[in-house]
C-alpha cells in the first residue's frame, strides 16, 4: 500500500477530486494548510506597515491506495492540479505498513 500526499493550490481541489472520482479512488482526507516552496510569499501593507507573508494557503489531500494503483493516482492528481505556474504544489508517496478498518477489523488492502 502507498500513501499519496498532495499539497495543491486551494482552487484546484474540486478538479483533483473529480479526477480521483473518475478513476475510482473513493477515500481521501483533505485539510487546509499553509506553506511555501520556491514560490515564496507576497507583500501586504497595512497603514504603511509592510508584512512579508511567506506561508500561503494550500490544501493537502491524503489518500492510501493499493501499491499497484499508486502511479495512476499520482498522474491523475498531477494532471488535475497543474497550472504550469510556480506554486502548483508537490506530491509525496510513502510506503504504508498496514491499514485497519475500525468498524470490522479488516486489515491490509481489504481495509482501504
Amino acid at each position, binding site marked *: 500500500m502507498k500513501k499519496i500526499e498532495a499539497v495543491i493550490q486551494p482552487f484546484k481541489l474540486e478538479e483533483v477530486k473529480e479526477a480521483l472520482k473518475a478513476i475510482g479512488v473513493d477515500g481521501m482526507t483533505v485539510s487546509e494548510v499553509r506553506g511555501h516552496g520556491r514560490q515564496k510569499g507576497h507583500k501586504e*501593507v*497595512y497603514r*504603511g*506597515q509592510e508584512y512579508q507573508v511567506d506561508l500561503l494557503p494550500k490544501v493537502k489531500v491524503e489518500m492510501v491506495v493499493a501499491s499497484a494503483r499508486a502511479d495512476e493516482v499520482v498522474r491523475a492528481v498531477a494532471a488535475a492540479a497543474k497550472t504550469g505556474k510556480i506554486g502548483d504544489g508537490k506530491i509525496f508517496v510513502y510506503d504504508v505498513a498496514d491499514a485497519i478498518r475500525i468498524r470490522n477489523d479488516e486489515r491490509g488492502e481489504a481495509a482501504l
Partner: protein
Amino acid sequence: MKRLFSMLSLSLAGAVQVFSQAATPSPSAALEAGIKSAQMNADNAWMLVSCALVLMMTGPGLALFYGGLVRKKNVLGTMMQSFILMAIATVLWALIGYSLSFADGSSFLGDFRYAFLEGVGADPNTTYAATIPHQTFMTFQMMFAIITPALITGAFAERMKFSAMVLFTILWSIVVYFPLAHMVWGNGGLLNAFLGGKIPCLDFAGGTVVHISSGVSALVCALVMGKRKGYPNEPMKPHSLVLSFIGACLLWVGWFGFNAGSALGSGSLATSAFVATHFGAAAAALGWLAAEWMMHGKPSVLGGISGAVAGLVAITPGAGFVKPMPALMIGFLAGIFCFYMVVKVKHMLGYDDSLDAFGVHGAGGTLGAILTGVFATKDINAPFKDAAGNALPVGLLEGNGGQVVNQLIGVGIAWVIAGVATFLLLKAVSAVTGGLNLSPEEETEGLDLSQHGEEGYNLEA
C-alpha cells in the same frame, strides 16, 4: 391614495382645532405658545436621534473599527474597552461629570450644582440650548464623554490590563475631559467663544475637547507603555478589515449626530454642519487614498476608511462654522496629513500607537482646529458681534487673523493638559494596579482569554 386623503383630512381637522382653541383666550399668546412648543418638539426629536447616533459611534462603531484592527486573540478585549465606557462614563457623568463640565464655576471647571443631576429636568437650560429639555442637552453631552476616552484605547490596544484601563479612564475623565469640556463649552469657560471666554476659541463639536485631548493622551500612553511584544518585527496584521469597514461606516453615519447635533437644534445650522461633515469625510477618504496609491502603488480599503475617519475628525471643530467648499478642502488636507503622520512619522519616531489614535485624532484634530480659524465665516455662525449686534468677521479669510492665534492657544492648552495629566495619571494608576501592561505570558495569550476568560471566535463550537 385613500390613506393619503384620510391623513390630509386628519391634519386639517387638527389645524382647525388648534385655531379654535387659540381663539378663546388671547389669540396671539396661544399661537406663540403653540409655535414654541412645536419648535421644542422638533428640536428635541432631532437631538434625541443625535444622542443615539453618537452612542452608536462608540458601540458598535468604534468597537468594530478597533476590534477588526487587532489580532483575533484580542478582539473581545478591544471591543470591551469601548463597551465598558458606555457604562462607566455614563454613571460618572450622572454623578459629577455633567456638573463639573457644564455648571457655572470658574474658567476651568464647573461647580457641583448639577451633581446627581440635581435640577436637570424638562425645562431648558437657556444658557446652552433654549429649545430642548435640559435633560436632552445633558444626555447629548454625555455621549461625547463616553466616546472620548474610548478613542484613547486605540493607543494601548493589545497590551493594557483591564483593571488599569478602567481606573485610568475614570481618572482621565475627571482630570482631563470635564475641565476641557468646561473650558471650551461651559458657561464662562476660558476658551468659550460664545459664553464669555477670555480666549475665544472655536470648537463646534469637539476638535479640541474630544479629538486633541484623546489623541495627545493616546500618544503619551503609547510612549509610557512601550511597544507590544515583538513590534514591529512580528506580523500584527488586522484580523478582520471587514469588521473595521463596518465600524468606520457606522462612525461616518454616527458623526452626523456628533456634528449636526452640536447645533443643539434642528435648524439650518444643523444642515450646514451635516453637509460640512459629509464633505469632509468624502474628501479625506480621497486624499488618503491618493497619497497611498502614489506612495505604495495600491489604494487600500483600510486607507480609505482611515482617511474618512481622519476627515470626520478634522471637520469636527469647524463643522458649524465653514461652508461646503472649505469643508472639502479641510477634509482633503486632513486625509493627506494624517496619512503622512500614520504611515511615515510614526515609523520614523518608532512609537507603537497601535491603532493610530494619535495619528488620526491628535493630528487630525489639531489640523482641523487651526483650519477652523482660517475658514470660519459669519455667514454660517457668528460668535462675535459689535455693540450694535452686527456680526463681526470670524476667520482669517474674513480678515480676523487673530482667530488663528486663538485657535493655536486653545490647541496648546489642550495639548499640555492632556499630555501632562495623562503622564501623571498613568504613573499613579500603575502604582495602584501593579503595572499597566499585561505580563508577557498574558500578552501572548491575548486580552480575551487572559482578561475576560473567553474567546471571540469559537469556530469549532
